[in-house]
């Protein structure tokens, strides 16, 4: 029988953002507290899965119009690029740089290239898991 999922869908709209924000939080926390790119990415995936559960593939595709394979590629490039940046400075691959910078909006803040790398990880995790779920879900 055809059922509506109004309760679920309404709840999801709120919950999705909570989870998403939480995942971003976990991602940024990574360097000093438990968390990081993986968990963050997976949690974002979980949020999107929730969307998929509550709505359907087509709606979610409309809401999040990314080609997730490209997201994977971008993530990989980001991660590789961070690592490979050191080639330019002729220091061993993967040498990270960090330091305190003055940024106009945030004031004094610590920046770490490892963060960019972790962002790459995040993107790859999200991209590939969502690709899998989308393709499986879209299989007939």
């Amino acid at each position, binding site marked *: 029988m055809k059922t509506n999922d109004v309760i679920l869908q309404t709840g999801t709209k709120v919950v999705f953002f909570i989870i998403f924000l939480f995942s971003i939080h976990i991602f940024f926390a990574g*360097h*000093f507290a*438990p968390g990081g790119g993986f*968990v963050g990415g997976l949690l974002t995936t*979980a949020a999107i899965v929730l969307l998929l559960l509550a709505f359907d593939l087509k709606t979610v595709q409309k809401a999040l119009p990314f080609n997730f394979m490209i997201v*994977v590629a971008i993530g990989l490039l980001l991660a590789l690029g961070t690592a490979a940046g050191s080639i330019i400075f002729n220091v061993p691959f993967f040498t990270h740089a960090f330091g305190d910078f003055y940024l106009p909006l945030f004031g004094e803040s610590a920046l770490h290239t490892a963060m960019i790398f972790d962002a790459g990880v995040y993107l*790859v995790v999200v991209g590939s898991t969502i*690709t*899998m*779920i989308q393709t499986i879900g879209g299989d007939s």
Partner: protein
Amino acid sequence: MEFVLLIFLPLVAALFVPLLYKRIKNIHTGWFVFVIPVILFIYYLRFIEMTMNGNVTTSTLSWIPSLDISFIAVIDGLSLLFSLLITGIGSLVVLYSIFYLDKKQEKLNNFYVYLLMFMTAMLGIVQSDHVISLYLFWELTSISSFLLIGYWFTRDRSRFGALKSMMITVFGGLMMLGGFVLLSIMGDSYSIRELIGNADSIIGHDYFTLALVLILLGAFTKSAQFPFYIWLPDAMEAPTPVSAYLHSATMVKAGLYLVARFTPLFAFSEVWVWLVTGIGLLTLFWGSFFAVKQTDLKAILAFSTVSQLGLIMSLLGASAVAYHVDGPDAIIFKVAAFAAIFHLINHAMFKGSLFMTAGIVDHETGTRDIRKLGGLMSIMPVSFTVAFIGSMSMAGLPPFSGFLSKELFLTSMLALRDFELFNFATWGILFPIIAWIASVFTFVYSFYFVFKTFAGKRKRQPLPKQPKEAPVGMLLSPVILATLVVGIFFIPNIVGKMFVKPAVVAMQFGLYNHPNEVAVHVSAWHGLTPELLMTLGIIAVGALLFLTMKRWQKLYEIQPQYLSLNALYDSLMIFGESGMNRLSRFYMTGLIRTYLIYMFAFIAAITTIMLFVQDAFVVDMDSFSALNAYGVMTAIILVLAVCMVLFAKTRLAAIIALGGVGYSVALFFVIYKAPDLALTQLVIETVSVALFLLAFKFLPTLKRHGESTAFRFGNFVIAAAVGVTMTLVALSAHSQKLIPSISEYYKETVFTEAAGGNIVNVILVDYRGFDTLFEIAVLAIAGIGVYGMIRLRLARKENSDENK
């Protein structure tokens, strides 16, 4: 001049053959090829002067100098003799082939390429001083003969014969290589002459006899000795010029060459003398005996070749005895060496001519079946004459060259009887007896060959072709050879001086300083010696047997087919195919479970055995941390969950249970202070469960598929073994923490050097970021894979195509 390069001349020329064949259609390609051996022959003639003085010349071409591997060509009496035979008979064979092979019907380019390749190979063998290059050329002869025998590759018999000859000769070659390597280790050199120089250190070595046997295997297979001769008759599928070349003068002589070459090194060994002489005589007898059974002209010749090779081999064995004796006794064994070389030359001549006549008969009548032939004498007089000369020489009758060497052979065999070394005395009498019997049969098959073909009456049923005498060109080569056969009878000592004695000096290295010291004088008449009496006996008994042949030839049928060596080879090959197939079928079941059982059983067994054999099983209770209530409780939950996975009836229950296991593991991570892991494990577990639920749409329900109790018990035993092994190993490894971990460093530097606080995360993105980079790559590839697997379905497409 670097004459080592000349070895490669035929090979280089071969490169141009296809070109010439394609471009110049009017002239038979053979004419171009003919030039090569002729040039070489003339070139090598120049060295006769040198070798007659007992001198040696070398020429080196390095190949892999760092490994001390190079082509060292040596020209001494032995190699020169062979080189001349190869190029000389080679020229004649090419000449003969020009008329034998039709330029329109045959792929002449292939044929001559193979032939030239073969020529290079043979020259290489006989001139190589370096064992590795010798081996190289040795295998090259196997390959080129494979190609030559399989020249008419659509015929099944050709394919069979080619494969057989290659298998047997390559086998010998490989064993020989092993022997060579052993020698090179023992004598610390690859050069044969240096090895002979180091003979003292080699002889005492443990591997001496092994090396000897291995090298003899090479020689015996190549020279078609018992029991390896079986490839030779089947090799007769090759075009006749090839047979004439390979099986009279060249390939089969390579083994003899090898034995001759290594005589100075191995002669000290008793085993050598026994093996070489014994196998030689056995082959002589065996070949001659079975030659009479054959009905195919070329098969008769093949068996005769086998027997003649055995004869020469036994002479070579006898000649080795010369190293063991001094004084007057030695002379007879030195004569054996002379006889061996001399007979080798004679055999090349008469067998070459015989093969060519057999080819002519085949070519002109269309058949080689001796039962259909007869009475060709009047139609083909020249061929008959040639065949007659050749056969009589083979039978050892005067005034043909074979007589002389045959006499010398009998002399040597008689000498072995009297000789009391290695307990020959008891068995020694067998040597002359076998030699005599074999000679009788040699006589018989020689007559059989020539008279059944040419004499008697024409058979009633017509031959496939109207017989006529062969064209002059085709007759030219056999006639030249036949002339030589007769000629040598009258000038044996000149031949001896020019060719045989220098070769003997090279062969019995160390016994002579100069060829002239070889005190052998060959004469047709040397008094009424036992040898002569034996010859007379041979003629008498042989003639009798030949006349009564029809009556006793049936005796051969007594031997059942399945007892022959050929049957042995065939069954070996069949074993290699269907036997191995059955064997493989037995354990390659195609079921992954079987394979996994092999693997798990092996892993568990070998690890446990090692653990106890190496005394590595240690359980040090002190190293363990105290029991922890939460830990134990989590452990219980985990075990319960695992049991639920095992006994789940529905797939949903199984997945929940698996999730339960995952969560328990996460709990462990919490308990053991790994928050990052706990987080990751939790999320991953959930996403996995979601994936499972997603995939359940496409998956069947959980079924056991009738796993029997025995099946489950088997699984259980293997599983238990693996589980117990892991526990034992884990306990032992944990009890032996011999060196503290490197991870203190991370704790110290994480803040100061890496500007981070979460050590695990910093390890992941910084210290060991490389791992992470490729770990996400794995995830990305998995994504690609899933995508491709689901979206790309060639199978369905195929099916739908078929349905249309």
